Every structure is written in structure tokens, then in C-alpha cells.
């Protein structure tokens, strides 16, 4: 009985070993499958503050304004970002990205600090503007190629995820101090924007 159990264990171990050796390539690095630019777009958004912070600011503002604004921004911003990116693909690379981002930092950060009571229509317009401007600047830097059409999808996916996560965290906040903490974060965004304007004017 004991020998039979030991035999079963040995067979299972052998089977696992064979499975481990027999595994095929994972194709986890998607350059060869054509999906690589999707992740390039996603990572571009997540690794650079110029695009990430304005989207974060808008998500904080939408969260402060409540569930309807959050839901509207969740779809407006990524869609506008996608359309802007696609439109920008055919354009020459624009150099105004830093200054544009700085202005959005100040505006969106200021609105969060002030806890501005924007209605749903204003939030929609604001989300569309942020998405179109940043998307266009992103797209214009990519250049026109077959692979470049996939990258905007990655960008807008990342925007969608960020807005979904941030608004889901902010909308339920009802405690006074928690909403104040969001507004303090807005002041940091606005302050960074002011500094960014300084160094973009200086041309660092």
C-alpha cells in the first residue's frame, strides 16, 4: 500500500517534470504578434507624468462631482483621447506638449482645489478637450505606420483604467477630511503645473 502511494507520487512528479520541459514559447513579448504597440501605448501613458497627471486631475475632479460625472468622464476621456491620437498620427510632431500639459495641470489642479461645482455638460466638454489635446500630441509623436494605429488603443485603455480606478476611489468619499485630502492632491498638481510652466518657458 505504502509502495503504491510512493509510486503514484513518483509518476506525478515525473509527469510534472515532463510538462515543465515540454512547454512551448510563451510569446509574452508581443513584438512579433503585432500587439506590441498596444503595450507601448499603455506604458507610454503610465510612465510619463505629462499625460498621466492631467488625466488623474480630471478623474479626481469627476470623482468629487459624483457618480454621474465619473461615469461620463470614464467614457468621454478615453474616447476623445483615442480620436485625438488617431487624428494626430498624420500630423507633424508637435513641441507644445510640455506647455500644454502644464496649463492642464494648473487648470485641473485649480478646479480640484476649489472643488469647482461643474455641471455634467461642462465635465463632458472638459473631458473631451483634455482627451483631444493630449491624444493629438501623443499621436503626432508616433508617426504614421501600420503598427502606430494600435498604440492609441493602448493609450485609451490606460486612460480608461486610470479614470475607473481613481473615480471608484473618490466617488464614495463622504468624510470631510477625505475630500479635503483630494483637494490637497489638487493643489500639488496645480503647484507642479506652475513649476512646469517656469521650466518650459526657460527651456530646461
Amino acid at each position, binding site marked *: 500500500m505504502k509502495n503504491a502511494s510512493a509510486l503514484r507520487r513518483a509518476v506525478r512528479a515525473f509527469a510534472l517534470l515532463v510538462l515543465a520541459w515540454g512547454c512551448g514559447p510563451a510569446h509574452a513579448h508581443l513584438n512579433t504578434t503585432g500587439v506590441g504597440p498596444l503595450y507601448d501605448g499603455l506604458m507610454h501613458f503610465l510612465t*510619463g*507624468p*505629462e499625460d498621466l*497627471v492631467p488625466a488623474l486631475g480630471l478623474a479626481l475632479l469627476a470623482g468629487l462631482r459624483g457618480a454621474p460625472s465619473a461615469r461620463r468622464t470614464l467614457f468621454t476621456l478615453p474616447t476623445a483621447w483615442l480620436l485625438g491620437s488617431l487624428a494626430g498620427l498624420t500630423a507633424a510632431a508637435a513641441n507644445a506638449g*510640455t506647455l500644454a500639459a502644464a496649463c492642464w495641470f494648473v487648470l485641473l489642479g485649480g478646479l480640484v*482645489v476649489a472643488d469647482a461645482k461643474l455641471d455634467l455638460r461642462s465635465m463632458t466638454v472638459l473631458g473631451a478637450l483634455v482627451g483631444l489635446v493630449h491624444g493629438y500630441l501623443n499621436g503626432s509623436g508616433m508617426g504614421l505606420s501600420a503598427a502606430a494605429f494600435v498604440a492609441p488603443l493602448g493609450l485609451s485603455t490606460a486612460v480608461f483604467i486610470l479614470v475607473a480606478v481613481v473615480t471608484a476611489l473618490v466617488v464614495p468619499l463622504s468624510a470631510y477630511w477625505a475630500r*479635503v485630502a483630494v*483637494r*490637497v492632491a489638487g*493643489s*500639488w498638481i*496645480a*503647484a*507642479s*503645473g*506652475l*513649476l*512646469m*510652466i*517656469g*521650466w518650459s*518657458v*526657460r527651456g*530646461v
Partner: protein
Amino acid sequence: MMAWPRRPSTQALLLLAACWAPAASAHLQQAEAGGLLTGLLHPLSGLDHVIAMVAVGLWGAQLGMPAIWVLPVAFPLVMALGGMLGFLGVPIPGVEVGIAASAIVLGAAVAFELRPPLVIAALLVGCFAIFHGHAHGTELPAGQSALLYSLGFVIATGGLHALGIGIGTVHSRPWGRQLLRAAGAAVSAGGAYFMWRAFA
């Protein structure tokens, strides 16, 4: 929950594996990440900055609502203006004196439990923020991302304010009030020391 292995041989193997771990090098200290790290560390690298920032939080906590959050919101915004002047190369005379004075005045405000109107308190804090921002702005290391450097020092400054507010919550306890006043006196004394150094 996973149980901790009891067999000494397994424990020894785990220890060996832990010791064997090479450096992850996940926190890059060059290029963009370097700018963020430098910015985060810049307000912490000077004790004069640290005590003044903590004093802002202490005073805000002592004054209560709404100063507890108005002062930490006003400070980074005005500090950014100072930083912008620094980036642009616009000189401000006596920056070190201004920073030391901020510690003296804000520490004294906590020590004496001064309760000016909110606008006056915000203006006072804002005036001193210009000096702190200018010092940060002029010391951007070459080759680093100014944006991430800016984000870093704004976040670190906010963290120091939060620390001050956290310490300041002792104000509500019977013994805390005196402790807070003593902390204010210590900040003020520290400021006096930095003032002496600025002129030495």
C-alpha cells in the same frame, strides 16, 4: 494563510535563498527617476526646510478647521511661484534668511498659540513659501527632469505638512497643548540657529 516551515533544513534553505537575492535595481537613480528622487529628497536634505514645513502643519492643526487644510494647500501653490522664479533665474535676495525667518516666525506662532484671521495666516505662510520654493527651483540638478523634480519636492513638502498635522493632533489632549507649544519653541530655536548661520 501559509504556515511557516518548521523543518530546520527548509528554514536554512529559505534563509540561503533570501541571502542569495541580487539587487533588483528597480529604483533607477538616473534619468527621469533620478529627477523624482532628487526632488523628493531635496526638502528633506535641509533641516531648515524640514522644521519650517513641519511648523506649517503644527500651526494648521493648532488653529483647527479650516486652517488645518488651507495652510497646506496655500503653501505649495505659492511655493510653486517661488520655484518658477528660481527656474527662470529671477533672483530673490536673502533666500536663506527668509527660510530661517520662516522657522522662527512659524515656530513662535505655535509656541505662543497665535490665532490671527485665516487670511493673515495664509498670507504669512504664503510669503515664506516663496523663499522655500525659490531655493528648490534654483537647485535643479543638470540633466534631470524638471517636471519630476518639481513633483518630487511638492509631494515631499506636502508629506512634511502632513507630518506636522499628525503631530499637531496631540493638541486635543490635555498634555498635548503644552507639548505642541514646546515643539513650536524648538522650531523657533532651530530657526534662530539657521539665521545665525546665514549671517555667519
